[in-house]
């Protein structure tokens, strides 16, 4: 499983992606490091997610979902991913009121959040990336997170 994910991640970087700036290997490398530091404790190594993430846990909270192709991160536009990561999230059906997905808007700079998202994108299939890109056409990253022209 671990091997498979790694292979897919690598191919994604190497593959001639129609929009190279979406998957830039330097950005992904930086994102992978941020991910390891801030996200892996909950979302698991290589974005594999918490066990039994589809069912609420004993506290009645949804566990951390995977970010790889098994999960549903790819279903969210850039705007939505940016918002979830910077502002945090709780599922409205959770039995507790706490924000289970912590906000990172104070911890990570906009370009760091973008780097983490670029890393998450490297974990998806081509088809999932295409879907997510289409979703993002109308819902791109917010202005504050736009990359500075190089």
């Amino acid at each position, binding site marked *: 499983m671990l091997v498979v994910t790694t292979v897919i991640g690598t191919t994604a970087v190497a593959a001639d992606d129609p929009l190279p700036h979406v998957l830039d290997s330097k950005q992904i490398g930086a994102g992978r490091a941020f991910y390891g530091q801030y996200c892996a404790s909950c979302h698991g190594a290589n974005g594999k997610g918490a066990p039994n993430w*589809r069912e609420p846990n004993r506290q009645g909270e*949804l566990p951390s*979902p995977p970010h790889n192709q098994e999960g*549903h991160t790819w*279903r*969210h536009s850039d705007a*939505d991913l940016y918002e*979830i990561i910077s502002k945090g999230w709780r*599922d*409205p059906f959770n039995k507790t009121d706490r924000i289970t997905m912590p906000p990172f808007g104070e911890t990570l700079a906009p370009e760091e959040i973008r780097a983490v998202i670029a890393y998450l994108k490297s974990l998806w299939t081509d088809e999932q990336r295409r879907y997510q890109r289409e979703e993002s056409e109308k819902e791109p990253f917010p202005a504050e997170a736009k990359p500075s022209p190089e």
Partner: protein
Amino acid sequence: MISNLKRTKRIWTAWLPGLTVLAIIPVLAAAFAISSARAADKGSIVALAYDAGGGALLKSDGEAVYRSGNNGDTWQAIPLPPSANGSIAAVATPAKRSGVVYVAGPGLGVLRTEDDGASWVALNTGLPSTKVTAFTAHAALPEAIYAFVPESGIYRSQDAGKSWKLMDRGPENTRQLLHTDMKGSMETGWLYAATLQGARVSMDCFCLWRDAGELNGKVDSLAYDPLQPERLYAASDQGLFRSTNGGQDWEQTASPEAAVTTLTATPSGALYAASTDGALFRSLDRAETWEPIGD
């Protein structure tokens, strides 16, 4: 793509051979409306919907749609095109539009009329077949619609049916779909499915389908209160239920005497229920009490 769409359009209007016939159609339609309204009163009602923009209740007996602007006193038929070869399973109206009616069903796929059935547009380009068994319109976005094709899954269109995208397989044995704009979605709202084994719910990102509470058994229909989208109603083979928290918890409530097959609610929160024997009821107090409507 575009040329395909034009072709489907032409098929549905091809039965109008000329202008002369066009002029006669309204007369014929009116006559048909009167005669079939009677027939429809007797048959079972398979679908209800409310055209909020036009202030009209819509019902279907599976063969045609009927519109009533006076709370069920009189009905005007919205006949399917004569070439239609299938039965209606769902009727829905888009948000923020008036007089636009979608019908869907096995053999029909998805059809839309904007002139009370004088002409129809088939919206099946991009669907795997016309075997659509459940259908709903987005609660707030007028161009977004959802169609369920049993062997394939749930398809979403964001351009009012011009193109479709397979979103996921959808819950097993889905019988009816409902979209609501309850708060707290990662996307734009929530999708509910009435199934043979209770109700299921997912945010409309199609992230995760889960049980909507513990409704057991066959759920025939779900409806929500647009004033307070966390208020849901469910008609099941165990009776009528309501929820005040988006379907996490349900309590049994009063059912009009007959077995309810389909439900719908208006923007002001009035709830309509129809039964297998074609009787129609309305509740103005959130399913506490019911009154029969029409004759």
